């Protein structure tokens, strides 16, 4: 009877219920669509990062804090043994999708070919191209395409690499790489020159070691990369630039060099023992990250290795900032929607109580307890909230589907290339769906409690006298 009366009263005050229900439904829809949007952002952001740097990276202890200044000093001794240890571990093995070493390095890149005389510092990463390609195929959340562009490198092309778009521009490689939207610096303006005049000793070293500036068989522009080895001696290698890998962050784009691991190791370690600055683990599923990390730490502890483990969020502080920013916006929207729903339902239920005061007196006289009156109005608020929130959920599905069908594109944070903009569907985020629905029903119920209490406290005779 409680639900019957509640439902019929909602229908009886159609216009009022419609207005209040609309507020709840729009609130539910807005929260869900925005929730789906940020779910998608989070998934896209995570996917991009995991495709690029994997889930976990094992470093030599201290690398994360101090290693950026001198990566060569933080090479992992016998990294291949460590990789074997990780790869053969019965707990980790089923969780790992890609296990690959990387070598970070700092140095100076020079373009001395074709009369050029430009050089600049670079931030290099040595990778195994096939592993890199495998990593970019990671797609746990069903992205329409990889967020990381194809490196177009092969494991057997030992001197071939990519550079950032900014690096290409600064080193005057726009024409050679046939880049569009890549202006050539004005030759007459010294201040706007692409790079500082190069110390003659560097040029000489490069030329003496490699014969830089000479024509070479690949037809690709060639850079000379100079770095100090781990033992402190200068070393130079040549890199055939196969293309540009645009980076989403300008500082990185201006300094980025991607090269085969072997070349990076040759540059950093020369004829000495080849090490790696990181061992990257890409897992099959992100949800295994905690377990994998715990197991890695256990392995490191058990074998007394001087290593540390960092996850992709630690390596990319921007990730956490974006998550927190969107969480804060979502919380703000949720609070606003909650307040709107609260006031709408309080207003509606207060009017219902006023209009039905005589009815309250009548049923109290018939023997309904105060709690019965309270329950009647609370159920009415909850039911109104539930119906409207359900409508809101249906609307959210429709809006999300319409947006996905519109084929918008966008550039995810940290990316350089546009990708399809696809909202997660509400059904893909059960906690969001259930949380939004339950949250709004709860707010509607709580909002009804105030007028319901007032109704329950009405003296019977006063209620009966009410006109």
């Amino acid at each position: 009877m409680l639900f019957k009366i509640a439902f019929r009263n909602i229908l009886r005050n159609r216009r009022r219920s419609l207005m209040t229900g609309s507020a709840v439904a729009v609130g539910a829809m807005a929260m869900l669509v925005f929730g789906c949007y940020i779910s998608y952002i989070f998934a896209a952001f995570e996917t991009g990062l995991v495709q690029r740097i994997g889930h976990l990276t094992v470093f030599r202890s201290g690398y994360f804090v101090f290693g950026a200044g001198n990566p060569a000093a933080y090479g992992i001794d016998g990294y291949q043994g460590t990789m074997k240890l990780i790869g053969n571990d019965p707990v980790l093995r089923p969780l790992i999708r890609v296990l690959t070493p990387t070598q970070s390095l700092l140095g100076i890149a020079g373009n001395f070919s074709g009369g050029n005389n430009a050089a600049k510092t670079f931030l290099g990463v040595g990778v195994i191209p096939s592993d890199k390609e495998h990593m970019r195929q990671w797609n746990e959340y069903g992205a329409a395409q990889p967020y990381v562009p194809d490196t177009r490198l092969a494991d057997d092309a030992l001197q071939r690499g990519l550079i950032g778009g900014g690096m290409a521009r600064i080193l005057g490689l726009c024409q050679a790489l046939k880049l569009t939207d890549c202006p050539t610096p004005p030759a007459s303006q010294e201040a706007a020159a692409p790079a500082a005049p190069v110390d003659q000793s560097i040029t000489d070293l490069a030329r003496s070691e490699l014969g830089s500036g000479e024509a070479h068989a690949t037809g690709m522009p060639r850079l000379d990369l100079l770095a100090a080895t781990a033992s402190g001696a200068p070393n130079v290698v040549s890199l055939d630039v196969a293309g540009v890998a645009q980076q989403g962050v300008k500082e990185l784009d201006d300094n980025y060099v991607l090269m085969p691991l072997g070349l990076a190791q040759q540059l950093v370690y020369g004829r000495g023992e080849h090490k790696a600055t990181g061992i990257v683990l890409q897992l099959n599923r992100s949800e295994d990250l905690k377990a994998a990390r715990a197991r890695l730490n256990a392995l490191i502890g058990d074998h007394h290795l001087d290593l540390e483990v960092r996850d992709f969020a630690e390596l990319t502080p921007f990730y956490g900032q974006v998550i927190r920013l969107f969480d804060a916006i979502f919380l703000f929207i949720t609070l606003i929607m909650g307040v709107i729903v609260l006031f709408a339902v309080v207003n509606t239920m207060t009017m219902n109580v006023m209009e039905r005061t005589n009815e309250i007196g009548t049923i109290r006289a018939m023997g309904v307890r105060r709690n019965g009156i309270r329950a009647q109005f609370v159920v009415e608020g909850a039911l109104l909230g539930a119906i409207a929130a359900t409508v809101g959920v249906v609307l959210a599905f429709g809006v999300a589907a319409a947006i996905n069908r519109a084929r918008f594109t966008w550039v995810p944070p940290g990316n350089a290339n546009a990708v399809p903009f696809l909202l997660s569907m509400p059904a893909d985020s059960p906690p969001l769906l259930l949380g939004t629905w339950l949250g709004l029903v709860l707010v509607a119920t709580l909002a009804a409690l105030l007028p319901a209490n007032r109704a329950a406290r009405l003296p019977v005779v006063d209620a009966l006298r009410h006109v």
Partner: protein
Amino acid sequence: MSEAAAPVVRLDHVVKTYRSGAIEVAAIRDISLDIPAHRFAMIIGPSGSGKTTLLNLIGCIDAPSAGRIEVCGEAVGLLSDNALADFRARNIGFIFQGFSLVPVLSAYENVEYPLLLVGMNAPERRRRTLATLEAVGLAAQGGQRPNELSGGQKQRVAIARALVKQPTIVLADEPTANLDSANGAAIIALMRQMQAEQRTTFIFSTHDPQLISHSEKTFVIRDGTLLEHRAEGAPVGTAGADATSRSDQRVGGAA
């Protein structure tokens, strides 16, 4: 009509005052009375005399400022709010001047409602509801909402709602006031018939001479004071054989 049982309602020096700002208004002034069971009893008096207040006190929907009220042998002043609600649900039926049906419920559902409050099982509830609707002549209108019924039909539903649980007492506040004389007469006849069938005590607050003419026990009040009490057939305004105009004396009882 003989009366051997204890009175169904007993008021003992009952006072009811209201506060209106700084002024205290006495609605009921030291009334003591007994109403015997199975009667058609009337509380009459001019507007503002305290009829409805007295009815509310007897119906346990208002509490006296002083004095003691016993209904069906229960000292209702000692009951908690919940216990009073349960007591009303079991023992008292109400018929209001403005019908006061729940507008979103059909006639059938309005009549069934009191049975839900006493926790009756569904088959018995259905049987009783249909029988009561049949008794008030609304078997065919069970599915209709109050706004689809005439005034007379609404009051029949209200009577059915009051009687369906077979209460000890039915309190009716001006039950014919909103009806034309033909409908009023029909409603009175119906209540008479139901009272005869169910042996329920009816207590009315009314000015309706047509209704008063059916009284078996009449209490006349003015300005909150019980002026007189008369038995069936005695003209209003003259104290009957067992009547008293003294409020400090118990009135009523067996007639």
